[in-house]
């Protein structure tokens, strides 16, 4: 009798297992993704940005070059921009793109960092991040600004931040105005060496 009970329980369990809901093993495919490297080549198409290279050194701002490139301006947005400037973490530059008649055909803002932010892993606590800031006294940084075929000059001004007014109203001091290459003077695609380097420090 006990043996029959055990056997019945076993068979019932097997039956129950057989009737158990699908565990879904056939619902998924296991996948891994690999990347296939290839030589870097410029994207086809005309330039879309000016790659602006700026030197900051001991309070001076120098525009080293502004070269056409096929890229995009991916920036922090005006809110972050203004906040960083007001926190004195960055200097505010305004650029204006001028056409042949000296009309402004585009403008925007570039934040040039005033601090270097160190972040690194704590030596004692794994995964804990440690942070420190220090003034950035010397650096060369880049920014991408929109490129227009009609652009002939680039004017750079530094803004004096004012917490009580929007960025658009901040007083501006022109630092430099530089000539830009005519569209036909620059290669039509991506990697373009700097072609226009203005004079040295501007203040």
């Amino acid at each position, binding site marked *: 009798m006990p043996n029959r009970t055990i056997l019945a329980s076993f068979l019932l369990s097997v039956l129950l297992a057989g009737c158990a809901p699908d565990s879904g093993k056939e619902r998924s495919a296991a996948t891994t993704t690999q990347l296939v490297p290839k030589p870097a080549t410029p994207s086809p*198409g005309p330039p879309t940005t000016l790659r602006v290279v700026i030197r900051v050194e001991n309070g001076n701002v120098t525009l080293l070059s502004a070269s056409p490139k096929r890229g995009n301006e991916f920036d922090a947005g005006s809110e972050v921009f203004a906040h960083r400037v007001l926190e004195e973490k960055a200097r505010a530059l305004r650029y204006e793109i001028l056409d042949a008649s000296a009309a402004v055909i585009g403008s925007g803002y570039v934040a040039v960092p005033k601090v270097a932010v160190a972040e690194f892993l704590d030596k004692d606590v794994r995964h804990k991040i440690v942070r420190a800031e220090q003034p*950035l006294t010397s650096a060369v940084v880049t920014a991408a600004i929109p490129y227009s075929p009609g652009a002939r000059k680039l004017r750079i001004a530094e803004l004096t931040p004012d917490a009580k007014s929007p960025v658009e109203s901040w007083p501006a001091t022109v630092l430099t105005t530089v000539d830009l290459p005519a569209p036909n003077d620059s290669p039509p695609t991506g990697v373009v060496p700097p072609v226009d380097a203005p004079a040295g420090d501007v203040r």
Partner: protein
Amino acid sequence: MNRRHGGLIRAVVSGVLLVCALFGVAPAHADGGEFLGATTLLDSGDTAAKIDIVFLGDGFTRDQQDDFNKKVDQVVEEFLAAHPVFALRSAFNIHRVNVASPESGTDKFATCGTDTDTGDSNQQRQTALDAGYCSGGGGTVYRCMFSGNTQLAVDFANNAPDDNFVVVLVNDSGHGGCAAGNLSYMTVEDDFEEVAVHEFGHSIFKLADEYQYDSPDDTFTGNEAGLRPNVTANREKASLKWGDLVLESTPIPTQPHGDDCSDQDLPDRDFSEDIVGTFEGATHFRCGVYRPQYFCRMRESHRSYCDVCRREVIRTLLQAANPDRVVTFHELKIKDDSDPWPRGDGEIYLNFDLTGRGHVIKGRWPADDESDFDDGQTKTIDVVAGVLPQAAADVPATLALRVRESDWPDGDDDLSSDTTIDLPDTGSFSIDKGDYLLNGDVVAADLRVLFDVLNVKDDQDGFLAGDGDIYVLYTIRSGDAVISGRWPQAGDVGMSDDDSHDMSIMAAAVPRPPKGEALTMEITVRDADSWFTGGDDDVGSATFTFDETSGFGASNIVHVQDASGFRLTLSVLGR
């Protein structure tokens, strides 16, 4: 080069570089560095529409370029696997610029201004990008791994098609990293790839740190307007910027310090990991400012992005992501199961490779084990085989398929011959061979459904009590499109009562539902049980419905679904 004694040489080199810049000559040998080549690791499309990241190496000699390449791969793998970046990786192009340094390593110093805790002795190395500790100009933070001549990195990075963000990996295993603007330097210490992904949180996604310093007077007194999307000083639930993710039952503030900020110890977590609220201590302040969840990658480098950060990541990347293509296997018919003596059901599995635009997705269905098929049997599969970037017009994506029958002891059998087909940009495909027929389709991945975090309220674990063996079955419908899936792909996940676990999967990529129709998700959470204890237990089941108003698209992305038995945080996104 020693930053303190190399001023004259650097001035000369800088002058040469300026002349190079003036006359359009890319620097091939700057500060002794030798340009070896530029490689695109991830090509998602036109640089005019993508976020381009460039990796450079410093202190890697010509013979150490393989080491550098592996370090870059480590970061790229970590970043592209990060949730939810993996689902929107087509927002990025990633490039590697190989530069050989004359010497290996980096500059080190015994002291750094007032920061004397360096642990190093003086060491000078001539390297391509002139990186070193105690750099950045201030000379006050030893762990600021930077360069006194960032123009070197700027110029070498210009060899990549575009360079929205530049990361310099420095060949040293010490703790160090520093960033300014779109340029960052970091050592290749243990777990450095985690730090890199945290840094991308700042540079690309504009997120604030969610950790704090523990000094008693460290109270935030600034304005809410200046805070990034993932931190707040707001204590009012009604106006909280992530209030849509807060459950009715969650108090605000959720986990505060004492009113006088006197409790120097961090409060222990007393809410489930998946709960969104306001947890005091963020953006380097211990009091007066709050983060949305207890854990986040912006707080500890090995965690996932929290719900709010994830939403910001998605918002950022949606602008640049491609209309990817999702390849789905819908139906498999086995004409001859190749099952040998003794005759029975064949134990069938597929291996496949999806190839397109620099990606190879290697897959297996079922994820483990096999599927039993008899001769002539057809099964509806409805599994996502993979998501590929949209192929270039002249180079179609391909599917290589290998169908097998698991056999022992003489080895697995092939069903018909292995085959490779070109996939359509969109539309159905069929592979009809002597032994099998596979039908599938390629659709534009208009909507992507990500399962972010699962919370199990009662794990249903019976005899013997312990962690439940949890798995999730789901079916997602959008118009005619039906995707079924399982998490995890195989096996189960140990979860106890009120336990949360990252799911971090793209459950489906489907077309938008027809106008007036909804996207539905049928979710079943189960606890796996052995036959001995009566089979698997239901933890809970629910159907969630989304339409244009309740949330998908570029704005209302992350959703906390509080069901009976479980809670699921998910994201529905689409341009």
